[in-house]
């Protein structure tokens, strides 16, 4: 298995945090919702009032949007520009309908009444969902199992 070392060495910081208007001009179009291929990352940025940075690793590109609320959202794109994973961490949860796209309904159906009162860990056919935290500190990551680039350890998605 090919190992990716998680560190600045492999990442090139292509963009400094952009101001809102600057981003519309400088960000390259990319998928935004999980599994999506039509939306532009600018749409996410508008929703999040976010600054963005783009990091390139060997097997994926990560767009990190930091909302004015302090919550960071990461979108992981494969070599074809499709989002195969999303994650978030911060004081407020992002808009899951928007972030999970066509997978939102799948998440809702599986998130129903449950015995555990705490983190949500779901390994659905083809989709893995983790959410944890409490008020003012939320974390989550969701990935499409068969779209994670081969050789990428899933705990690099974070």
């Amino acid at each position, binding site marked *: *298995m090919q*190992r*990716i*070392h*998680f560190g600045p060495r492999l990442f090139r910081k292509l963009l400094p945090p952009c101001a*809102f208007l600057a981003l519309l001009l400088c960000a390259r179009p990319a998928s935004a919702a999980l599994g999506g291929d039509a939306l532009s990352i600018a749409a996410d940025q*508008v929703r999040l*009032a976010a600054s963005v940075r783009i990091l390139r690793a060997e097997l994926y590109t990560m767009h990190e949007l930091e*909302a*004015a*609320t*302090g*919550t960071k959202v990461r979108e992981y794109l494969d070599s074809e520009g499709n989002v195969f994973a999303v*994650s978030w*961490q911060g*004081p*407020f*949860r992002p*808009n*899951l*309908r*928007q972030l999970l796209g066509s997978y*939102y309904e799948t*998440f*809702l159906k599986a*998130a*129903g*009444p*449950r*015995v*555990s*009162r*705490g*983190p*949500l*860990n779901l*390994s659905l056919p083809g989709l*893995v969902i*983790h*959410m*944890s*935290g*409490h*008020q*003012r*500190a*939320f*974390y*989550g990551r969701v990935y499409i199992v068969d779209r994670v680039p081969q050789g990428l*350890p*899933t*705990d*690099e998605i*974070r």
Partner: protein
Amino acid sequence: MRGYRMRRAGLACASVALLGLGTACSDNSGLGHSLIAGPADNVTELTVDSGLPDMSYYNGIFATVTVCVPDTSDCQSIDHVLVDTGSAGLRLLGSALTLSLPSVTDDNGVALAECTQFISAFLWGSLRSADLRISGEQVNHLAIQVIDGPVNTSTPVEGPPYAVPNDCTGYNAGTADDLQANGILGISNFVQDCGQHCTESPGLTSSNPGLYYACSSARTGDCQVAAVPLAQQLANPVALFSQDNNGTIIELPAVPPAGAPSMVGSLVFGIGTRDNNAVSQETVLQLDSRGTFKTQYPVDARPNLAFVDSGSNGLYFLSSALTAIPTCVGLLSAFYCPAFTLNLTAKNQDAKGLVSVNVKFSIANAISLLSGRGNFVFDDLGGPSTAPSSGGIGMSMAYFDWGLPFFFGRSVFTAIEGKSTPAGTGPFVAF
């Protein structure tokens, strides 16, 4: 229930009395010692049981609150309100409320509502004003949330209830079946559930996270994100008491290894404000701005962000891959299922890394615990915080969640942000 506590307390007292130590009833299973406070103006009874009738809530900790129409004696006592140190604010199921409480409105007289975020779920409902009474403590004109749940067909046009906004996302947990409780009493380390960000005008570059809405009618789309002053946000009611307002102590007895059907303890208001709420041998862990500290498990591992949360019903940490503890198969896959009960040690560290303390805890087989013996209270119920993964690179950012099992056999102090106590200024937890 009260009888059960007295019996337990009696046993603990007897052994102490033999040592000539007076009437203190202590339990040494936790690190700090735990005294279950008796009746007082600042003490209310806690019950750990299966929740509302015919429900199976495991490790749910509840209190009874009294709410009144403001400035009247028109009051209602509501039991089985979940006591949650992980959130701020009183939220009651609309279906449990018989009172007609007035709406909280914005400056234009438009009714306010909230989409309250939880880990994967939300609670939606209007803000109402109520006088809250609990033990001898009181808050008048407290903003509370009346939880509406899914669409109600009998909704009047003017509302409430109001249609859930499109941007209010997650699983709608606003029913008795989902909550298995009549509401949530949020007594976290924070004063408000949102804070400064929700006072900002909404807009493209705003930091307003969009929790609060102003609702002009019950129709879909007629609730708009609103800026709400701190004083109108859902607040930890303890912070608004006229006394004993700097925090709380949850005091619960120890639980036998196989669990118990129910348990009774005390919720004490105030820290160091009276004889019954002094800080003594407890370790104080200061928290960061998000209410978290750090936990290392094993004690020499990399630290994980962590929090103490009475509203979580287990000890949720790491993953099967990292702990080598198997998860249960089937419906209980959210829990760990070791072949035999594991006695473990973790190291807790305050947010700045200045104070640390080792904590012992146990993880038992959840299928064995929950398999229909009529027990609903366990100090050894736990599960993964995140799922197994394939590689060892990086650190999972899922939290180490010290849920209710952590509270048994302990006194757990929750100090509110900005409030001073003899053990320092909040936010902190101490135990």
